[in-house]
């Protein structure tokens, strides 16, 4: 029972990282495609402003995922990090480059250097979610089992690659949707249309990869594939598809701000569909939630800690996002730090 609750918390944390982190990675994705220094100046300006106060917070979801994995399901953690060594290592490097690139670009003044940091930030924004996606795909594909050692086959297969691409597409969608709303918020009307178009492109990418993904069946993946095309899994997939359609529709209208919620729903529902589809397995079809669960006392404490933390952190998160969306948070300018 406890194990199942923790497994759900883990899935929620993954969904939260996919959404929170996804928005950030997506912003980086569009930064990459924004063109040369002159052409891309305005979109990049918006991207920087929109991301600045919240990316660290979004990153913490990833830490949660890791901690929940090794405390709640130690063998699962061991299995995943052994079998999927390379994509995880590359994702880690990508994440470092991305965070550092973003943080360093800001206080740097010279254009040439800003370009380098910016390029590092943008490229790793593309690479990192791709590798995280392949890891999810690797787990879902059923090629991983306790004791599997690292090999290319585990993650460089059709399912993994498609999941990697889906992750990139999802981040592109999230990023563009949020930037559309941000553009309006900051009064940059010219950028509203700019990012709206890109949000639609993101929708199309998600649809394309999703349809290909569901139609290409790999014999290894049959368990998860069955779960996604039947029962509650199918229901969640359909719900995600509906949310996607709603997102595309909302973008066209005056209430584009609400597209943020529906786009988050697309991603969260997709993650949920994956989780539901591979029930009761952590690693289909070799390790169930019950088999992988760690000792029960720490699991119970994990839930208690999470509950206490929610009480402490819930209000703080709400405050942060509120202050941020109301434009109260803004970086120090040069005038603030000179006399």
């Amino acid at each position: 029972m406890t194990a199942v609750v923790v497994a759900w918390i883990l899935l929620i944390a993954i969904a939260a990282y996919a959404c929170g982190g996804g928005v950030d990675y997506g912003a980086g994705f569009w930064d990459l495609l924004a063109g040369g220094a002159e052409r891309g100046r305005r979109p990049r300006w918006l991207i920087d402003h929109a991301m600045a106060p919240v990316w660290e917070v979004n990153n913490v979801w990833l830490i949660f995922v890791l901690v929940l994995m090794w405390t709640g399901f130690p063998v699962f953690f061991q299995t995943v990090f052994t079998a999927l060594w390379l994509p995880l290592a590359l994702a880690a490097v990508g994440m470092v480059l991305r965070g550092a690139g973003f943080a360093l670009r800001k206080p740097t003044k010279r254009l040439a250097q800003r370009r380098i940091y910016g390029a590092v930030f943008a490229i790793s924004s593309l690479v990192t979610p791709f590798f995280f996606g392949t890891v999810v795909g690797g787990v879902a594909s059923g090629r991983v089992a306790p004791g599997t050692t690292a090999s290319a086959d585990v993650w460089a297969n059709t399912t993994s690659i498609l999941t990697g691409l889906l992750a990139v597409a999802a981040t592109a969608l999230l990023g563009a949707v949020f930037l559309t709303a941000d553009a309006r918020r900051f009064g940059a009307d010219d950028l509203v249309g700019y990012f709206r178009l890109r949000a639609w492109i993101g929708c199309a990418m998600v649809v394309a990869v999703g349809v290909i993904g569901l139609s290409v069946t790999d014999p290894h993946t049959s368990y998860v594939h069955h779960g996604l095309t039947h029962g509650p899994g199918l229901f969640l997939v359909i719900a995600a598809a509906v949310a996607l359609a709603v997102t595309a529709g909302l973008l066209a209208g005056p209430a584009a701000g609400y597209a943020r919620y529906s786009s988050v729903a697309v991603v969260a529902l997709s993650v949920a569909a994956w989780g539901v589809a591979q029930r009761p397995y952590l690693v289909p079809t070799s390790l169930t939630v019950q088999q992988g669960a760690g000792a029960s006392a720490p699991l119970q404490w994990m839930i208690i800690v999470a509950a206490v933390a929610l009480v402490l952190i819930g209000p703080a998160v709400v405050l942060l996002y509120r202050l941020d969306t109301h434009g109260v948070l803004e970086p120090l300018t040069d005038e603030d730090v000179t006399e």
Partner: protein
Amino acid sequence: MNAAAALLADSTPGQLLPAREMMAFTLASHIMLVPFGVALPFVTLVMHYRGMRKNDPVALLLARRWSAVMAVQFAIGIVTGTVLSFEFGLLWPGMMGRWGDVFGLGFGVEAWAFFLEAILIAIYLYGWRRLKPRTHFWLGVPLPLAALMGAFGIIAANSWMNTPQGFTLGADGNPVDVTVRQAVFTPMFGPEYWHFVVAMFLTAGYVVAGVYAVGWLRGRRDRYHRLGFTVPFTVAAILTPLQFFLGDNIARQVFQKQPIKFAATELVWNTGTHVPEYLFGRLQEDGTVKGGLKFPQLDSILAGFSPDTQVTGLSSVPAADRPTATQATIAHWAFDIMATIGSVLILLALWYAWCWWRRRDLPASRWFFRSAAVAGVASVITVECGWITTEVGRQPWIVYQNMRVSEAVTPTAAASLWTMFGIVAAVYVLIFGAFLTVLLKMRTRWRLAGSGAAAASVDPPETDTPYGPRAEHAAAAPGAGGAPGSES
């Protein structure tokens, strides 16, 4: 120890060396930022408070500038920390698979604490301009508490590795019956936590003060430098003698709870009484000590206040269960360097206290400021040495007397690990280099601005600064007219 494990211990897998080197390198890098993550918010808030209460623009300026530094430092701390979390899986899956549930809870607390910290720091750093001054300050006040909670989690995990408990071993060698309270509050937890926390505040204080000491030496003796020096230096100077006592205490705890580690850090070969203390010196394979200063009986006296105190020696356990002679020497040197620097810092703190007591003023001597400038670097070195003592002294165990490092290491091929290590090292060198460059640039800009030079002359014409106030209206944003980004 069952036969299989003993066999495992004998064969040193090839991955072990790169895995260790990489862990050591990334930890040592991360830990350089930790004092600032833990203590810079506190030092900044002290300055901020002063600025608010006395309505002192200089203090507020300092607080704002430290915030600007914190923004960059915090980001680098986060990415290097996240790498560590990955490395637990990438390098030591064996440890996590068997023990993750036993000692993971500390990390659970840590993760939530970081979450709170990340939120609060975002509000603090970005709240300077628009929040009401009081609200802004009070929203920052929980920051040091969140940092202390984060340190709690990490140190709980590390002290568990040093003195593991809170479980019984099942038939298959896996832990069962986990008692959470015991697994979190292990015997080494208390001593480690307080020694660590004080080290963080002390280090942050000396480093920040060191920056202004350099300015002072170069002749910038205005109130700005005076204040920037005095506040952090006072914090650090008060903590220095306290840290000496905590260090003495933790050493005695190690003597009691990790006797083999103590033997390594003190180069004790044979168990006995009247054990001499070596300052530096190198342990040889045959148990003799080459070089170093020998103080007869002193080690026994320090460990138990009497020359009759019995100290366990390295030779009391089989060679496979203790650090090698080289590892013992490394731990010993690290320990001695830490204790030496700790003692010298006390002299510096006394000097400062003396002048303050007699004249209510900073010491006039240039040598004082030279030493103060060095104290920052020295305390960072001390922190590194402390961790080397802890970690190398624990060898060959990753979980003291329960799991060897060689049992925990990943099966991934050594070549992959070396490659990854190479990439990570290169990336870190670049990042830390860039980080320092950015800090130095900031300093130069501020100095020129402070000395009255027009800000414009600092920045080359190619500069674009899209980071002005967040524009309410696009008109204030760069390039608004041309709108080059809009669809055409």
